[in-house]
């Protein structure tokens, strides 16, 4: 008998009328207006050279109360880390510390303009330099750029750095090898870098098939991209052999750092032979996901590759002050200004709070919690790779599909009724009906136990009442959606009713 968790979102389904913000208020409603004009006003059309707006503009007209109620109402229909556990594999949905939120809002940070003189932004530049030093120590790779705005952006940046390095040697290459368990951003980034993706199969242990890798590596290989620990949550112990094989053909080894949470302070990608990696600050370093972003994807590279990094970077000068500088053979910019500074502040606060020991404890607890859950669930569900996992593990819903006709999708939707966000589902594609579970280190034991208990209950429901699961969820703000209809007849914006 499972108790419904007290914090289950949407436990009382919101079924009342639901309005778009455009439908609230009245034409005369106002919230914020421009202050009275204290200078002369000319004719807009003249000032703008005949470009005054004639096209209609329909935005909401609401009062402050209506805005705050509207967003409060929307918030009740949203699940966040503050609401409950998100065991999303490879997303590292850890707690977002509040002091980080305060920090990035300090006027001395939030109020900075990117072009103000360096002398007036020394605190910010020192912060960026300090964060870079910490990431260098954690990654084992000394060259750091904080510019990329997200992990995928970091992947592409690193590939561009590889390209520049190959070109500088007069050795242009065209292919990048990835394992079949790679995240979709990997091959997409390869294409954006004008290269071709070659996919190699994983072996039966879910690790890199080193023979297949060696067979695929040749003088046309620019790089091999690997997530280690992998997207199956396993640390590939062949890693040194792998990076050596990659280097033997003159290619670069890239580490997708999405799973860094598992090895903080325990192992460093630079020491494994990787030439570059990206880090997801919004995963490993506690910065909030914000409903989809903004994240930040710093890239760490070897000393050899550091001259090619994008600029500008914050560097400590001889006199102890900080300034912006460009790497000697920079590839150029990959975006405007210096990076997602507001996100960098949050990550900096996090690493300062934890220190070296604290960061190592993160990995230890993350890995322990994942193994704990695996033990609790491995009888009720098939776990295709049963050995010790890292910070996440993959289960398969294959048995429930076979025996009861219940799919992972159905079980995921049923989890919503119990107040948990589902794990990552249907990824990696290597595992049938995959569920990838990553608890993170910030979940209390009670939450882990509750999650395991709910999963076991769902396994029982799958056996005794499959129909129940096929139509779940029942208690969320909305139930299963017509996604096919949304794609067939896209309605992507509000259109005001015809006047």
């Amino acid at each position, binding site marked *: 008998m499972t108790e419904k968790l007290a914090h289950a979102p949407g436990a009382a389904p919101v079924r009342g009328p639901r309005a778009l913000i455009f439908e609230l208020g009245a034409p005369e409603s106002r919230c914020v207006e421009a202050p009275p004009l204290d200078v002369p006003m000319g004719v807009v059309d003249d000032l703008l050279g005949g470009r005054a707006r004639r096209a209609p503009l329909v935005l909401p007209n609401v009062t402050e109360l209506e805005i705050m109620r509207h967003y409060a109402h929307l918030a009740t229909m949203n699940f966040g880390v503050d609401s409950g556990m998100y065991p999303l594999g490879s997303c590292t949905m850890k707690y977002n510390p509040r002091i980080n939120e305060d920090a990035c809002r300090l006027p001395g940070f939030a109020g900075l303009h990117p072009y103000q003189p360096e002398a007036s932004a020394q605190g910010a530049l020192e912060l960026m330099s300090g964060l870079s030093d910490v990431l260098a120590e954690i990654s084992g790779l000394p060259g750091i750029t904080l510019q990329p705005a997200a992990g995928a952006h970091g992947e592409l940046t690193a590939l561009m750095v590889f390209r520049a390095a190959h070109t500088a040697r007069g050795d242009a290459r065209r292919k990048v090898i990835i394992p079949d368990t790679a995240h979709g951003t990997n091959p997409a980034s390869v294409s954006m870098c004008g290269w071709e993706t070659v996919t190699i199969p994983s072996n039966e242990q879910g690790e890199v098939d080193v023979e297949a890798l060696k067979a695929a590596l040749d003088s046309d290989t620019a790089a091999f991209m690997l997530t280690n620990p992998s997207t199956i949550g396993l640390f590939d112990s062949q890693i040194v052999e792998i990076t050596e094989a990659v280097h033997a053909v003159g290619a670069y080894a890239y580490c997708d750092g999405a799973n860094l949470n598992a090895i903080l302070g325990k192992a460093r990608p630079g020491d494994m032979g990787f030439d570059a990696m990206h880090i997801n600050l919004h995963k490993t370093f506690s910065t909030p996901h914000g409903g989809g972003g903004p994240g930040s994807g710093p890239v760490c590279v070897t000393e050899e590759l550091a001259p090619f990094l994008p600029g500008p970077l914050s560097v400590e000068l001889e006199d102890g002050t900080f300034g912006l500088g460009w790497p000697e053979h920079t590839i150029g910019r990959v975006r405007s200004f210096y990076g997602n500074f507001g996100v960098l502040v949050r990550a900096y606060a996090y690493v300062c709070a934890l220190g070296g020991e604290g960061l190592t404890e993160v990995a230890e607890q993350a890995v322990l919690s994942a193994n704990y859950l695996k033990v609790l669930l491995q009888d009720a569900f098939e776990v295709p790779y049963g050995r010790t996992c890292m910070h996440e593990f993959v289960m398969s819903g294959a048995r429930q599909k076979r025996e009861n006709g219940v799919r992972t999708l159905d079980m995921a939707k049923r989890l919503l009724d119990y107040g948990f966000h589902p794990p990552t589902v249907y990824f990696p594609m290597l595992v049938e009906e995959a569920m990838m579970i990553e608890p993170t280190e910030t979940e209390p034991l009670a939450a882990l136990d509750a999650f395991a208990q709910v999963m076991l209950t769902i396994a029982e429901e799958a056996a005794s009442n499959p129909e129940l699961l096929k139509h779940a969820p029942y208690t969320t703000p909305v139930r299963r959606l017509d*996604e*096919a209809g949304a794609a067939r007849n896209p309605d992507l914006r509000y259109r005001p009713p015809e006047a």
Partner: protein
Amino acid sequence: MAHPSDRKYSNEHEWVLVQGDVATIGISDFAQDQLGEVVYVDLPSAGDVLATGDSFGEIESVKSVSELFAPLSGEIVEVNSALGDTPETVNSDPHGAGWMVKVKLEDAAQLDALMSAEEYDAFIVEG
């Protein structure tokens, strides 16, 4: 599931129905079931020429995309434009109203390389 025996099938799950010198091409019932609800079909135009094995379009469900591979070669003489408005026809009637392109058959011998309904039914069980 038994696929209709009046036509041939490719190992990419397309069917070919020949009437005179025109070959109609679509995807099999097995294929539409695997895909799930079809939301969009991207087809070439009449006048385009297909070469055997080439990708000639794409079919999308909510969470997947599959390429369509030409089971034979020839010039496209007609395209099922109704699928633009109602792509779900591919699900409801994959062997009839869900047809995709009609091609002028270049070489009838190409049909020999395709599977009969029986062979196809066995093929999908093995795969």
